[in-house]
C-alpha cells in the first residue's frame, strides 16, 4: 500500500431527511437537506479534521461514509469500489477496515457487559473459536495499546465503574480490535473534561504514529483538532465550504464559517 492511496471517498453525497415540523431554519416544509453534494477523499494513514458547527452535517457525512445510512444521491467508495457493490467478502473487509468511535462512550457500551467482553467483542465476532485465555490476552493487549494498564482488574469492571476518559479509551480499544485502516472519530473528546481531552488526543497521535492508522476526526473545537490534523475540511449548512492543509486554513481562512469557528476557538483561549 502506498502512502497516499485512496482509502475511502465520498462523491457528491446528498442526504435529505423528511420534514418533521422543525421550528425554524432550513427546509421546514421540504425536509432538511443535511448533505448537499459533499465530496471528500480520505487517503490511508492520513489524519483529516472535519470541523463545523452543530448541525453542519458532519455526523451525517460520517454515517454515510460508514455505510450506516444510504445517500439519496452520490456514492461512497472503499478502495475505489462503490460500497453498495462490494459483495459479501468485500463488505466484510470494509466493515473490518473502517471503525467508528462515538462522542458518548457511555451510550456506546452495553452497561451490563464487562470491559473484557466489550473490547474483545469484535474479535469474538470475527474468530468464533478463540479460547478463553487467548480472548483475555487479546483484550489486555488492546487495553495496553490505549494506555489502560489496569490489567485483569480492569477487564472485570463495568462501564459505570470507569471515569469518562477511561470509557472513551475502552471504546477506542474496541475500535482497534480488528486492526482497522481508518478510524472515524465523531467528537471523541467534546464530552470529556479539558484535562482529559489532551490525554485522549495524545493517545490518537501515538496510535497514528505506531499503527499508521488513518483518522477522520470530527470536531467543533478547531483549536484542539487543528494541531493533530494534516488537513482540515470545514462544513457549514450541509456543504464543504473550505478545505486545505491545516496551517493554511488556520492562517488564511477564506470562508466566514471558518473564521467564525476560529474566532470562537481563540476567544475560548
Amino acid at each position: 500500500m502506498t502512502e497516499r492511496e485512496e482509502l475511502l471517498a465520498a462523491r457528491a453525497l446528498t442526504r435529505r431527511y423528511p420534514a418533521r415540523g422543525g421550528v425554524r431554519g432550513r427546509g421546514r416544509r421540504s425536509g432538511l437537506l443535511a448533505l448537499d453534494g459533499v465530496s471528500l477523499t480520505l487517503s490511508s494513514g492520513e489524519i483529516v479534521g472535519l470541523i463545523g458547527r452543530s448541525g453542519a452535517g458532519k455526523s451525517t457525512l460520517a454515517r454515510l461514509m460508514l455505510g450506516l445510512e444510504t445517500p439519496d444521491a452520490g456514492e461512497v467508495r472503499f478502495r475505489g469500489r462503490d460500497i453498495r457493490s462490494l459483495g459479501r467478502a468485500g463488505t466484510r473487509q470494509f466493515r473490518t477496515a473502517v471503525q467508528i468511535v462515538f462522542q458518548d462512550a457511555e451510550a456506546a457500551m452495553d452497561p451490563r457487559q464487562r470491559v473484557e467482553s466489550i473490547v474483545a467483542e469484535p474479535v469474538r465476532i470475527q474468530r468464533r473459536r478463540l479460547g478463553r485465555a487467548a480472548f483475555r490476552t487479546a483484550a489486555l493487549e488492546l487495553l495496553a495499546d490505549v494506555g489502560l494498564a489496569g490489567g485483569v482488574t480492569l477487564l472485570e469492571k463495568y462501564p459505570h465503574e470507569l471515569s469518562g476518559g477511561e470509557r472513551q479509551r475502552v471504546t477506542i480499544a474496541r475500535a482497534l480490535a480488528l486492526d482497522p485502516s481508518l478510524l472515524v472519530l465523531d467528537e471523541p473528546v467534546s464530552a470529556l473534561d479539558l484535562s482529559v481531552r489532551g490525554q485522549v488526543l495524545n493517545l490518537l497521535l501515538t496510535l497514528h504514529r505506531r499503527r499508521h492508522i488513518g483518522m477522520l476526526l470530527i470536531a467543533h473545537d478547531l483549536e484542539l483538532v487543528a494541531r493533530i490534523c494534516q488537513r482540515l475540511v470545514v462544513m457549514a449548512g450541509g456543504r464543504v465550504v473550505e478545505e486545505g492543509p491545516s496551517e493554511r486554513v488556520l492562517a488564511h481562512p477564506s470562508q466566514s464559517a471558518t473564521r467564525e469557528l476560529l474566532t470562537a476557538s481563540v476567544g475560548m483561549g
Partner: protein
Amino acid sequence: MSTLLQIENLAVAFPGADGVMRRVVDGVCLHVEEGDAMGVVGESGCGKSLTALAALRLVPEPGRIVAGTVMLDGEDVLAMAESRLEAVRGGIVGLAFQDASAALDPLRSVGFQVAEAARLHGPVSQQDTPGPGAALLRDVGLDAEALWRGYPHQLSGGQRQRVLLASALSGTPRLLIADEPTAALDTVAQSQLAELLARLRAQRGLTLVVISHDPRFIERVADQITVVYAGETVESGARVSVLGYPAHPYTLGLVALTKAARSAGDETFPSLPGTVPIPAEWGCCCRFASRCPSVFERCRERRPALAEIAPGRRARCFLWSEAEEPID
C-alpha cells in the same frame, strides 16, 4: 458591596454501599459579593454541582448537608423554613441546571415551560399566547413568537440552554447559578453564551455563579474564581490574579491546559496526569498530593487549610501557608 452568598466549609454526605454516610463534598468555601461574576472551576467529580444544589438546599436524597454554613444575603439557608425556601428558590437565586435536554420536559412546549416558571413567581394569566414568558425568551436572545409552540427536541443545544436560562430568570432573581452551561454546545454557541451572560449581568444587575470544568470558558465569563478539587476549595480570588499567577499547583495545572493549547508547533497536547481521587481515596492529608509536581513530605501527613495568602486571595497549599486543618 455586600456578601450575597457565603458558603463556609460545606460538607455533603451520601450513604455508601455499607449504609455509612460518606462525605463527597468536604471543605468547599464560596464567597460571592453582590454584582460578582464568580466562576467555579474544577474537573468533573469535584463537587461543583452539589455545591450549587446545596446553596438552595436541593441536595438530592439520600444525600445530606452534614457540616458547614450557607448564608444567603444574611439569612441562614440551612435553618430556613420550607415556605421561605420556596420563595428563595427562583426568587433570590435562579438555578439553570446542567444538561438542558434533561432539565426540560420533552412533552411540553417551550412557551408552556417558561410561562409555568413565570406563573410560579407571580400572578400570570393562563393564556397560552406569548406573555411574560415571551419577554424572558426575548431577553435571552430567542425569537419568542417562533419558538413559543416548539418542543425541546426541535431546538438546538444553544436554544435549549437559553430556554433554561429564561426559566431560571423568571422569578427575577438577584443571583443566577448556571451549572456547566456549555455542555453539548459547539464553540461558536459557547462564545455566544458568554456574551449573553455578560449582557444579562449588565442589564439586570445580576450576580452570577458559573460552574464549568473548562477554564477557558470561566476566563471569559468570570471576574472572580473559585477552584474546587476533590470536594474542597483549593484556591479563590480575582480572575486576573488566580489565572495570571496561580498559587495552588492544581490551578497551575488547569491554566497550563489552556496556555499550551494555544501555542502552536508543540505536537503533544497538555493534560493533567492522573485523575481526581474518589472520596474513599482522599485520606487525611492534601488531596492533590498524588498528582502534585511540588509535593513534599508534609503534604502526605497533614491536610492544609484554606488560608488567606494575599488580600482577597486564598489557597489551600503548604507551599503558601503553614495553616492546616485540625486532625479528626
